[in-house]
C-alpha cells in the first residue's frame, strides 16, 4: 500500500524543519495557560487536578510530536480501522463502562480511564475524510452513497446519547456534518434534515432525561430557578462579568475559589480564566485559538491530497465548534450541555483526542506533498 515517493525520503531534520512552529507554539501556550488555570482551580496549590493535568498535557503533547512523524498515508489507510476501534470502545462502554454521576461514559483501560466518545469526535472526521477521498463529486449527492455515511454517523451518536451524554453526541454530530458539508453534500439535505430536526424536536425532548430537559428550559430563563438549574449559568455570568477589563488577578477569582462556580475544572474553565484575567486575557486566549484554527486551515490549503485537505478543513471547523460551543455556553448564549474547551479543560480523553487530531494535521503539514491514491 505504501508507495515510495519523494516525500518518503525526507530526512529527520527536514521533517522537523517542516513542523508548523506557530501552530505548535500556540498549542503549547494554551497548554501552559491551562496548567496555570488548573493550578488556580485547585485554590493555588499543586494538588490532584493540577498534577494530572500537567502530566497529561506534556505526555500527550510529546505523543503528538511523535505521531506527527507518521506519514499522512498511515492515517488514510487506518481511517476505517480507527473508527471501528473507537466504535468498539463505545459499545464496550455501553456494556461494561464505568458509571459516574449518572452517566456510563468511561472504560477502564488499566492505565487510563478512557472516554471513547471524545475520541469519536476525531475518528468520525478521519473516517469521513477517507470515505470522501475516493468518492466522485457527482456521487456525493447520490442517495445510495449517502446511506453509509448516515449509518457511520448515527451509530455512535445513538450510543453516546444513550450513555447519556447529550453534549458530546451533539459535538460528534456537528463534526460529522461539517465533513459532509465540505465534501459537497447538497445544501438541500441540510435544509431538509434541519426541518426534520425541528419537527421531531418535541418527540426528542420527550425522550430526554429530566435533567437534560431542565437544562434546555433554564437556558431560556435562568432566573426562574436561580438556586437550582439556572445556578450554573447565573454564577458563570457573574464570574465573567465581574472580571472586568483586566480581571481580578491570578488566583484571586472569588467566584471560583469560594466555590460559587460549578464544574470549574472542566466545562467552566474559561469562566475561571475570564474572571481572573478579564476581557484582555479572554481576548488573548481567543486570539490564540483563532491562530490555531487559522494555521490548520492554512495547512489544509496547500496539502496535495484531498484526504488531508478535507481532514484539515473539517478538523479546523470542528475545533472551532468545540471552542465556540463551550464559550457560548459559559457566556449564557447556549444551554448548558457538557462540552469541554479543547486543551484547557480537565480530562484525559479530550486531551488525547485533541492531540491526535493535531498530530494528523501536523503529519499533513510534514507530508504535504504526499499524494494518496
Amino acid at each position, binding site marked *: 500500500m505504501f508507495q515510495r515517493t519523494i516525500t518518503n525520503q525526507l530526512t529527520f531534520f527536514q521533517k522537523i524543519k517542516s513542523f508548523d512552529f506557530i501552530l505548535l507554539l500556540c498549542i503549547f501556550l494554551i497548554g501552559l495557560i491551562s496548567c496555570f488555570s488548573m493550578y488556580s482551580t485547585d485554590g493555588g496549590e499543586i494538588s490532584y487536578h493540577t498534577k494530572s493535568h500537567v502530566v497529561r498535557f506534556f505526555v500527550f503533547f510529546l505523543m503528538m510530536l511523535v505521531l506527527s512523524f507518521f506519514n499522512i498515508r498511515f492515517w488514510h489507510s487506518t481511517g476505517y480501522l480507527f473508527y471501528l476501534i473507537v466504535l468498539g470502545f463505545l459499545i464496550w462502554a455501553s456494556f461494561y463502562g464505568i458509571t459516574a454521576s449518572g452517566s456510563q461514559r468511561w472504560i477502564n483501560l488499566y492505565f487510563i480511564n478512557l472516554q471513547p466518545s471524545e475520541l469519536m469526535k476525531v475518528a468520525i472526521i478521519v473516517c469521513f475524510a477517507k470515505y470522501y477521498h475516493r468518492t466522485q463529486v457527482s456521487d456525493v449527492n447520490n442517495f445510495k452513497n449517502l446511506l453509509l455515511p448516515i449509518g457511520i454517523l448515527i451509530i455512535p451518536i445513538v450510543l453516546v446519547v444513550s450513555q447519556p451524554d447529550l453534549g458530546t453526541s451533539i459535538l460528534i454530530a456537528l463534526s460529522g456534518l*461539517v465533513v459532509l*458539508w465540505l*465534501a459537497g453534500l447538497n445544501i438541500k439535505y441540510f435544509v431538509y434534515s434541519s426541518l426534520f430536526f425541528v419537527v421531531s424536536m418535541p418527540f426528542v425532548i420527550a425522550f430526554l432525561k429530566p435533567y437534560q430537559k431542565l437544562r434546555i428550559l433554564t437556558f431560556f430563563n435562568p432566573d426562574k430557578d436561580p438556586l437550582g438549574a439556572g445556578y450554573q449559568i447565573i454564577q458563570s*455570568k*457573574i464570574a*465573567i462579568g465581574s472580571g472586568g477589563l483586566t480581571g481580578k488577578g491570578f488566583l484571586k477569582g472569588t467566584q471560583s475559589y*469560594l466555590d460559587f462556580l460549578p464544574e470549574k475544572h472542566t466545562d467552566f474553565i474559561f469562566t475561571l480564566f475570564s474572571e481572573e484575567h478579564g476581557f484582555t486575557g479572554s481576548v488573548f486566549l481567543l486570539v490564540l485559538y*483563532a491562530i490555531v484554527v487559522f494555521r490548520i486551515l492554512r495547512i489544509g490549503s496547500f496539502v496535495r491530497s484531498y484526504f488531508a485537505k478535507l481532514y484539515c*478543513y473539517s478538523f479546523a471547523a470542528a475545533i472551532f465548534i468545540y471552542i465556540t460551543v463551550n464559550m457560548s455556553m459559559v457566556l449564557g448564549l447556549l444551554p448548558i450541555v457538557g462540552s469541554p474547551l479543547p486543551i484547557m479543560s480537565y480530562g484525559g480523553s479530550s486531551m488525547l483526542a485533541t492531540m491526535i487530531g493535531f498530530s494528523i494535521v501536523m503529519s499533513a503539514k510534514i507530508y504535504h506533498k504526499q499524494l494518496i491514491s
Partner: protein
Amino acid sequence: MISDGDTSFRKLNTINRRMFIISAAKVVIFTGIIARLFSLQINENKKYLTLSDKNRLREWKLPPERGEFLDFFGNTIAGNLKVYQLHIVPEQVEDFKYLMVRLKDILDLDNSQFAKIIKKKNSQKPWETLVVSENLSWEQFSKVNFYLHELVGAKPVLSVARSYPFKENFTHVLGYVAQASESDLANNEIIKKNHVPGLRVGKIGLEKAFENDLIGSNGVQRYEVNAFGKRINQIDFTAGKKGKNLRLTIDTEVQKLCNELLKDKAGSISVMDIYTGDIIAMHSSPSFDPNLFLYGISHKDWKNIRQDPLKPLINKTVAGLYSPGSTIKPLVALSALENDVISPKFTVRCTGKMEMYGQNYHCWKKKGHGYMNLRNAIKQSCDTYFYEAARKLGVDRLEETSLKFGLGKKVFQDTFIDEKKGLVPSTKWKKDNLGIGWVLGETLITGIGQGYIQTTPLQLCLMTAQLANGGYEIYPRIKAEKNQETAEQIKLKMKQAAVQKKENENETISPVIKARNFFKVGNKDHKVLYRNPENIKFVLEAMWGSTNEVMGTSYGSRIDDKKYQFAGKTGTAQVKRITERQRELELKAIDMPYEDRDHALYVAFGPYKNPRYALSIIVEHGGSGSTTAAPMAKKLFKLIIDRHEEREKIIKQNLPNI
C-alpha cells in the same frame, strides 16, 4: 487519482468554496463571542461585580450589650452577668456522638436536656454554632476545661446574660427580658434592626418601656463566605455600642422593705415624692425571681407562678384595680368643701346606719359614732357622715375632683404597658356604658369608696401626694436624670402658680397680666388643683388627726417623733356584699374565707410638719386598713425619712456616677 482532472478540480472547487463559507461564519461567530465578552465584562462589569460581592460577603451581627438599670444611689439592679457557655460547631467535630456522650457525662445532663440539644443540632446548619449550655456553673465550666483535650470541637465561652441581683424585689418595676418574639420584631423597628438569633428583649415593665434606650447596637463582623455559606475569613469588624444605662428614682432599701412587709401577702406598696413625683418604691406582691426567665423557665416553676392564687404575674401597683374604700374620704371631703356643699361645721348624727328609700346604708361602726363634724368624720372614718356628704355633693362633682387629683387616668402615660386607667363613675358614664340611669344609692356608696369606683394603688399614692403638697399637680417620674427639676424648684413653681391663681381671681387685675399668667410655663407645669387652699389644709389636718389623735383610725400606728410623724387615712374595701345576717354575726376577718375578706388600704404622707413623701398600701384580703396596712406605713416612714438625707446628698451632687 489525479487522472480524472476534471472531477478532482470540481471537488477542490467545492471544498474551497464551502471552506470559505464556513470561515466567514467563523469570523461572525468569533466576533459575536468577543462582543458578548465585551458586553458582560466592560458594559455590565459594575452590575456583575456587585453581584459577585453579594455572593461572597456576609455580615454577621453580634448581639448588642444591653444597658443596665441602676437604682437612685447607683446600685445595679439589672446588670449583665458574665456567664459561662458551652458552644459546639458540629462541622469541626470529628465524632459528634462520642462528644455528646462525653459531655452528657461531664455536665450531668438528663435525658430530656440531651434530647433537646440533639434536636437543636439537627435543626441548624453544620457550621452554625450549637449552644449546648447557656449557663454553666463554675464547677461544670472548670470540668469542661479540664477534659477539653478529649472534647474536640467543644468551646467553653464567656458570654453575658441579664441578671437581676435583687431577684424578686424589682420584678414588676423592671419586668424581665426573654428571647425576642415575632411580634417584638414586628412592632419595634429598633429591635428588628439589631436583632440576632437569641437576642433578649424586654417583655414587660421598664425593660420593655425603655427598650430603645437599653438595646444598644450590634457589632458587625464582615466575612468572606463560600458558596455553602461557610466563613472563610474575616474582612472587618465594627464594635457595637452598649445600650444606655438607666438610673431609676427608686431606693432599693425602701423597695426591699416593701417586699418584706408584703411577704406572703398579695398587695402593693407605692411611695412617691410629693413634689418631684419621684417613685421611691413601687412593689407588687407576691413577686417572683425574674432570673428564672433568662434561659427559659422550667415547666414546674412556670406552673407555680401561673397557678399561684395570689397572682404574682400581675403588677398590682399599676394593673390592680381596687375599690379605694375610706381612703377616698379626704377627697370626698375636699370636693364637698370646694363646692361649698358643706362647711367643716356641718354635723351629721351617726346611728350606725342610714336609711334611704327603704335601703339601709351601714356605717362600719354598728353602734354609730353619734354627732360627727367633718374633721371627726374623717378622723374616725364615719361612713354615715360621708353618705350624707356624698348625697349633698352628687357623684358628678365628686368625679370632677377625683379626675383632677389623678384618679380615672393612667399615672404613667405609656411606661407600663399593663397600666390600667381605673374608673371614676358619673351619671353620664353609667348612662353611656350601662345604659341605665344613676341611682342615688350609688352616690352614697361612691362617697365611701365602694361601688363602681376603681383605682390602682399608684393612683391613690398620686392622689395623696397631690393633696399633701398643698393641691398642685405633679408628674410622677421613675427615670432619674441629671439636671432634673429638684423639689425646691418645683415648690417655687407651685408658689408662683398659687400667686398667679390669686392674681387671676382678683377682678381688678388687668387682662394683660392674666393672659401673661396663663401662658407662663410655671402656671401650666404644676396646675393648682384647689379653689381654696384652706380646704386642702383642713383635710390634711383631719388626716393628721386620724393618725395622731385618740379615736383616730390609725392612732395605733402613729409616730410621736415630729421628725417621722405622718398623717394618713385608712381604708377597708369590701370585696363582697355583706348580708344582714353576717352583719349580726360581726364576723372577724380571720373567720371568713380568704377571698371574702376585705382589702386593707392605707394612704399617708409625711413628715407631717414639712411633708415630702406620700405612700399608698394595699393588702388584698388583709382585713382592716387600721390593723394590717397602717402599721406598715409606720415602718416605711421610719426608713423613708431616715434615707431622706442620703437622697438629698445624691441630688446635690447631681447624680454622680457611682
